[in-house]
């Protein structure tokens, strides 16, 4: 990559984050909350993109990691009084372990492509049903974090108002983004892409495909788990339906696909597009009292984007902005 391109990219990235850092000064609480949602979606999108966009493994059960991370953090902080900072670790590790188990099962039995996707769906759905029947987490009735009092210290409880959440998630998103950049440019990035392109050819070149596939699943699952943990902290209540199962899995993948798989900024761009549109159509739906309008718009949007820009919207735009050499990497 030329030095000029690298400089342009760095400058653009700094500008981007800088602008986001000052937005809360001029935006209202609702807009801030929507952007926070964008950041959360972007974090999961980056995680999923590592697995699908770079390593080529299609997971449609990422909700499993999201939900498990959410419940782990919620249970530890609520029932055991663990500090949320500390609880983030198991919220990442436990989903990571699940990822390795599912991956090991799938890869060991050479379950690839569509079949692997179905496998992940099955596990995510079973988790949802399992949690729906589990008394300890309140089954379908929900699991609730205690209400915030005026004595709440956001830095300790990691819960707070819209602005606090905004900055917390912005920082997480930047960290996740940086991590993904480092990983993709490392040996891992090369091995993942090789496995994506042609696993057998990669193995013939000495790439330890199994190890690297498991690694990407573990990392992807762990990051998604942390995002789930934040979801719990933000919403204060968890229902199996809202964090587990295939419906949620589908929600999680729309943004990175729309933004652009196999690119570093694509998932963020996708989240920037998709989340506000979803919000907008949802409020349209409500104000006209027409149920389902948001689904309709969302569905049409997906089909249109996938038809005219199957590699996502970001690659073309990055090209115009002269921020990339050519489409995918």
């Amino acid at each position, binding site marked *: 990559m030329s030095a000029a391109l690298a400089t342009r990219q760095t400058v653009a990235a700094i500008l981007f984050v800088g602008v986001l850092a000052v937005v809360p000064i001029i935006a209202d609480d609702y807009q801030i909350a929507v952007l926070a949602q964008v950041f959360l979606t972007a974090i999961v999108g980056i995680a999923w993109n590592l697995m699908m966009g770079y390593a080529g493994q299609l997971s449609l059960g990422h909700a499993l990691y999201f939900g498990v991370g959410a419940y782990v953090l919620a249970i530890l902080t609520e029932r055991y009084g663990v500090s949320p900072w500390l609880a983030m670790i198991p919220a990442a590790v436990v989903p990571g372990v699940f990822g390795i188990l599912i991956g090991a099962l799938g890869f060991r039995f050479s379950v690839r492509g569509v079949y692997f996707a179905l496998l992940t769906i099955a596990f995510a759905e079973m988790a949802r049903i399992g949690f729906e029947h589990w008394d300890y987490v309140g089954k379908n009735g929900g699991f609730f974090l205690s209400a915030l009092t005026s004595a709440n210290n956001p830095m300790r409880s990691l819960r707070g108002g819209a602005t606090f959440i905004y900055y917390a998630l912005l920082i997480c998103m930047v960290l996740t983004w940086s991590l993904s950049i480092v990983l993709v*440019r*490392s*040996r891992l990035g*090369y*091995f993942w*892409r*090789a496995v*994506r*392109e*042609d696993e*057998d*050819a*990669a*193995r*013939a*070149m*000495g*790439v*330890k*495909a199994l190890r690297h596939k498991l690694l990407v699943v573990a990392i992807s699952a762990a990051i998604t788990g942390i995002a789930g943990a934040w979801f719990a902290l933000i919403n204060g209540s968890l229902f199996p339906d809202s964090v587990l199962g295939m419906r949620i899995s589908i929600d999680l993948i729309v943004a990175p696909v729309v933004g652009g798989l*196999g690119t570093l900024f694509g998932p963020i761009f996708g989240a920037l597009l998709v989340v506000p549109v979803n919000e907008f159509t949802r409020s349209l739906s409500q104000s006209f009292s027409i149920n389902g309008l948001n689904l309709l718009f969302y569905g049409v949007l997906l089909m249109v984007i996938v038809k005219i820009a199957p590699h996502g919207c970001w690659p073309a735009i990055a090209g115009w902005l002269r921020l990339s*050499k*050519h489409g*995918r990497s």
Partner: protein
Amino acid sequence: MTGPIGEPANVLEVRSLTRRFTGLVAVNNVTFEVPKGSITALIGPNGAGKTTCFSMISGAMRPSAGEIIYDGRNITGLKPEELCALGMARTFQIMRPLSGMTAIDNVTVGALLHNPSVRLARGAAFDVLARVGLAEKAEMPAAMLTLPDRKMLELAKALSTAPRLLMLDEVMAALRPVDSDRIVEVLRQIRNDGVTILLIEHVMRVVMALAEKVIVLHHGEKIADGEPAAVVSDRRVIESYLGRKAKAV
């Protein structure tokens, strides 16, 4: 069988190698040796079982019976990535470039096997590309390379893993003589650097020019084994193959 200082004289020994599919025996009790530092050719008509042998040797397919000895060590059943780490590299008859990646990225993947950092690996990869004449096209996406260049890339990918045994599957196929001559030169240089080469080939011109030893397969069985001149005049070989398919120049 060892040489003077206790090292095996043969880089590769294949013993009674057999592979059965339902209703078909693709490779039947094949035994041969590939001497260290040699260029050995494996020839035979289409369907003789040559690529199947390669697949078994390189770990992509499990033999139904038989053993494969590499450097004195029984490697039967090891996985492709393990064998590559031990110094065995192969190219594929149907080329398998990593199409979404650039040429240099393709080769870097292999170079990372023996280079600890990405920077060093890319440097080594560039050297390999230069060696096969693809230096100017390093940043091109592999999918956009011409056929001869893709062949070179396939060779470069194998070379990047710093192999001691290089297995080439019909690397000359569909090339114009000027391009295949280029590859022949590169292969000679590689051999002079101490790499043993085992190649499957149809283009007889190349086999006669390069190979010191020729093994002939027909219907999955070995029918001849020896120096090119001897093999070429072997009756059975002529009947089975050379009489119909010789691509003399």
